[in-house]
């Protein structure tokens, strides 16, 4: 065990985490130079295309250190976005130390700090690494100064590297061996293994990724998942090399995988503790945050006959995304679907994209909502995250909405525009602190609903990309709420309904109508789009019909050419939802929450 090191790399987006991981894999000789590109980068490309690291991954690196000893360095990769801080926390809990990667040119960013806090909560050894020192704009001195003042870490503890150029990689490996403590634990004790990831393998069922803290698990063992007491017989255990590598057992301190014919994928929850059925440990492993979805939306298949396929897709998808929750739901306009909980709007969009891409389904998401709390006149309390379940307005005594504390970091020159934006978003109790020359941190308490409503895009836009943003959920606060419905040609489309702050009902409804006007293509007849509170129409737009679209001539006997064109259009139309004979494109449902970027 003394020759094992479990570590992770944490960084703000684009600070070079994937490149450093690639380098470590390469230098420890996991892959020879020739195969490097094919085997590693291609794999990573998929995630690069999606823009961020979505999945945790693990790999065991063999390392011959300068002290002459052979080590196994388990690198546990973590997702890289604020929406996924829960998954990050679980990966971190499987480690004894982290490399805190900071871009030499960009310096400390909001997420650098957020990740640092997570690492500190898990009592991890932190090795600051300044990356991209080869850049002309690199300012190592400034970053060192930030490590001291903003992160509160020992300014002499940092390492310098250029992952891209392969500079300083050996020193990092040596630091991992020397500074990160070896895992502790008793291989003979009762089994306690932490699930930090799980994936679905269509041939073998669920692959559980875990870190063993105490005890040993081997083939044939009966394991028990402590959260739901489900038991399974172990079929295979092993370690992660480039592919899975089978072993007889995995013991305290090690990172590895378990196959145990877990077929019901929802039985596996990231963060759960695995123990042995006949010799369980006393209590589950600590240190995990209870994850709570904050944004809710319903997913419907565009074609009703795809409902069963969608159900299977979501079940499989959930295995790889512990933060995603769902239950059955139905909509008058969109039929059978699922109500889903997400960590944020970005998480929602990733789920949408992955379900569509990986399971080849066309889906529609209803307008996202936060979870409101209503106290009714009879004294009962209802939580409502689905506008379709908005209580009868006359029965409501009090409405409350969730508030967050937003932490905004930016160069000082953007302070004015950001404060203005936060005021518009009903921000209150602001606090301002100067982090360093020209850099400020602003905190605001504001309704979560305002954050999911185009806040992030606008914040990025007004700070020209220099701002970073993080938030934590605080509490519920009283608010005046109304339900705004959207009617398309007089027909209420429940999936477009929103619960909004009363003073914003009109502008919000008008905006929704206008965005829909942009998204819904003109059709053969006039389409009226209205926003309404109850029976009162508060906003309205119309989409005028087109009057002429027929082409003059069918080219002699060439019927094929035109048919192919129509087939293409028909295919496009299949990706729209027809409601009351109006074809509404998928994009319209999320668009109502977004600012038109052209404006």
């Amino acid at each position, binding site marked *: 065990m003394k020759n094992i090191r479990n570590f992770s790399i944490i960084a703000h987006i684009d600070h070079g985490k994937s490149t450093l991981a690639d380098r470590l894999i390469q230098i420890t000789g996991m892959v020879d130079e020739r195969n490097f590109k094919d085997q590693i980068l291609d794999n990573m490309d998929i995630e690069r295309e999606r823009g961020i690291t979505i999945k945790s991954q693990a790999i065991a690196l063999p390392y011959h250190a300068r002290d002459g000893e052979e080590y196994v360095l388990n690198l546990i990769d973590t997702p890289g976005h604020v929406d996924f801080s829960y998954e990050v926390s679980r990966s971190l809990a499987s480690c004894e130390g982290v490399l805190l990667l900071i871009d030499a040119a960009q310096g400390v960013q909001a997420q650098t700090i957020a990740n640092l806090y997570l690492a500190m909560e898990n009592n991890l050894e932190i090795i600051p690494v300044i990356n991209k020192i080869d850049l002309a704009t690199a300012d190592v001195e400034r970053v060192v100064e930030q490590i001291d003042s903003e992160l509160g870490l020992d300014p002499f503890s940092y390492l310098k590297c250029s992952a891209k150029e392969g500079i300083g990689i050996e020193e990092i490996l040596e630091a991992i061996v020397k500074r990160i403590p070896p895992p502790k634990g008793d291989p003979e004790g009762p089994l306690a293994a932490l699930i930090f990831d799980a994936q679905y393998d269509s041939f073998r069922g669920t692959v559980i990724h875990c870190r063993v803290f105490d005890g040993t698990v081997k083939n044939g063992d009966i394991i028990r998942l402590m959260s739901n007491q489900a038991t399974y017989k172990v079929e295979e255990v092993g370690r992660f090399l480039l592919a899975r590598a089978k072993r007889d057992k995995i013991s305290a301190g090690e990172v590895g995988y378990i196959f145990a014919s877990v077929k019901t994928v929802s039985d596996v929850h990231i963060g759960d503790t695995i123990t042995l059925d006949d010799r369980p440990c006393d209590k589950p492993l600590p240190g995990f945050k209870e994850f709570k979805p904050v944004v809710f939306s319903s997913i419907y298949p565009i074609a009703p006959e795809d409902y069963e396929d969608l159900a299977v897709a979501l079940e499989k998808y959930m295995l790889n995304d512990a933060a995603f929750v769902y239950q059955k739901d139905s909509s008058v306009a969109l039929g059978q679907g699922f109500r889903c909980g997400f960590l944020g709007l970005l998480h929602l969009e990733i789920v949408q994209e992955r379900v569509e891409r990986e399971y080849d389904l066309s889906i529609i998401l209803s307008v996202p909502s936060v979870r409101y709390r209503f106290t009714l006149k009879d004294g009962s309390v209802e939580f409502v995250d689905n506008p379709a379940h908005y209580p009868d307005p006359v029965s409501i005594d009090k409405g409350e909405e969730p508030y967050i504390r937003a932490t905004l970091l930016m160069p000082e020159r953007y302070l004015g525009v950001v404060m203005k934006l936060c005021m518009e978003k009903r921000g209150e109790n602001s606090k301002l602190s100067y982090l360093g020359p020209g850099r400020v941190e602003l905190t605001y308490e504001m309704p979560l609903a305002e954050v999911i409503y185009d806040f992030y895009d606008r914040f990025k836009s007004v700070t020209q990309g220099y701002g970073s943003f993080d938030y934590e959920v605080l509490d519920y606060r009283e608010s005046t709420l109304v339900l705004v419905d959207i009617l398309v040609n007089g027909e209420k489309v429940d999936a477009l309904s929103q619960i909004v702050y009363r003073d914003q009902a009109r502008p919000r409804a008008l905006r929704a109508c206008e965005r829909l006007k942009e998204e819904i293509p003109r059709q053969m007849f006039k389409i009226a789009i209205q926003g309404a509170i109850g029976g009162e129409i508060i906003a309205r737009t119309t989409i005028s019909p087109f*009057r002429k679209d027929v082409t003059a001539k069918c080219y002699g*006997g060439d*019927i094929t050419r035109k*048919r192919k064109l*129509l087939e293409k259009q028909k295919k496009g139309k299949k990706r729209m939802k027809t409601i009351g004979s109006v074809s509404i494109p998928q994009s319209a449902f999320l668009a109502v929450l977004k600012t038109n970027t052209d404006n």
Partner: protein
Amino acid sequence: MNSGKTPGLYIHIPFCLSKCHYCDFYSSTSISAVPDFLKALVKEMKMYRNMFDVFDTLYIGGGTPSLLTPSQLEDILTSVQKNFDFTSEPEISIETNPADLDRPLLESTREMGINRINIGVQSFDEKVLGLLGRRHSAKQAILAIEASRKAGFQNIGLDLIYGVPGQDVNSWLDTLRQAVAFSPEHLSCYQLTLGAKTPLGVRYQAGEFLMPGEELQYEFFIKTSEFLEDAGYIHYEVSNFAKGTKYVSRHNQKYWDHSPYLGLGPSAHSFQPDRRWWNHRSLDQYLAAIKAENLPVEETETLTMEQLRLEALYLGLRTKKGVSLYDFKNRYHYDLFAEKKEMIDRLQEEGLISIQDGRLYPTQTGLAVADSLALI
């Protein structure tokens, strides 16, 4: 496979003296290749002997069939008769350029049994003719129409184009007025569409002129329909008008109702349920294939039921008589009325379609959006 419908025969004469600036059809200006082509055409006819039922239409199109000599045309008709069977009173049409219609040609075509003449007038406005790159004048068109009558043609069709850059509705109605004055039995009024590679298309993309917007297009379309219906013509298809049902183009109808047809010559298309095929577009490839004793076919496709359905709907809804709900159900196994009830009701309310005697058909305003009607 026999569809129970009478087939039509199309012959594509792929030659023009000059290319019109808007034209997207295949034609060559190498007139010297005409004799080789005619030999190949006869060989192609032989390849298709006995593959089709008895024909009741022949359509000689192009290109410009009227640039052939009377004896060349006669040879074609003789070979057609040798290789294919026809019903007793076939419709035999020819497409012509006004500049070619001298008396000898007109009289000999009549004698050969060609009973329907289509004259490519396009416009009576010299400015428009110039822009379109036509090689004849308005005056020549007038003379050609008169000469055709004199030669004894009792079924004259005029082809006209509207929506030309710079043209307003009134100047177009002027052309229509002049056309109607000759009491042609048939009128085809095509809205100008520009293929990207045509000379006019290239100029349009370079921003040299604007094309009519949707509202203006609609006005052209409706005004044309109203004007000609007032003048006693039936607007029986998006672009086609006939002086009574007797003069509806029997041949073109075959394209619209899944009747079989055989197309000969470069780029010609054929259909025999439920298969479509088309010939090489280039004359050289066509000639080479025939020389090698091969069918000059570039591609063949077999239609799925869903494709047949879409075709039947888009083609049927381009015609005034629309589609028979009963036939649709029988032939394409799809109950349009039951499956699309909500949409059909809606479109009826909007006045875009009607249902009568079991037929679903577009109204005048519905015809203007026929492409979308096909996607209901």
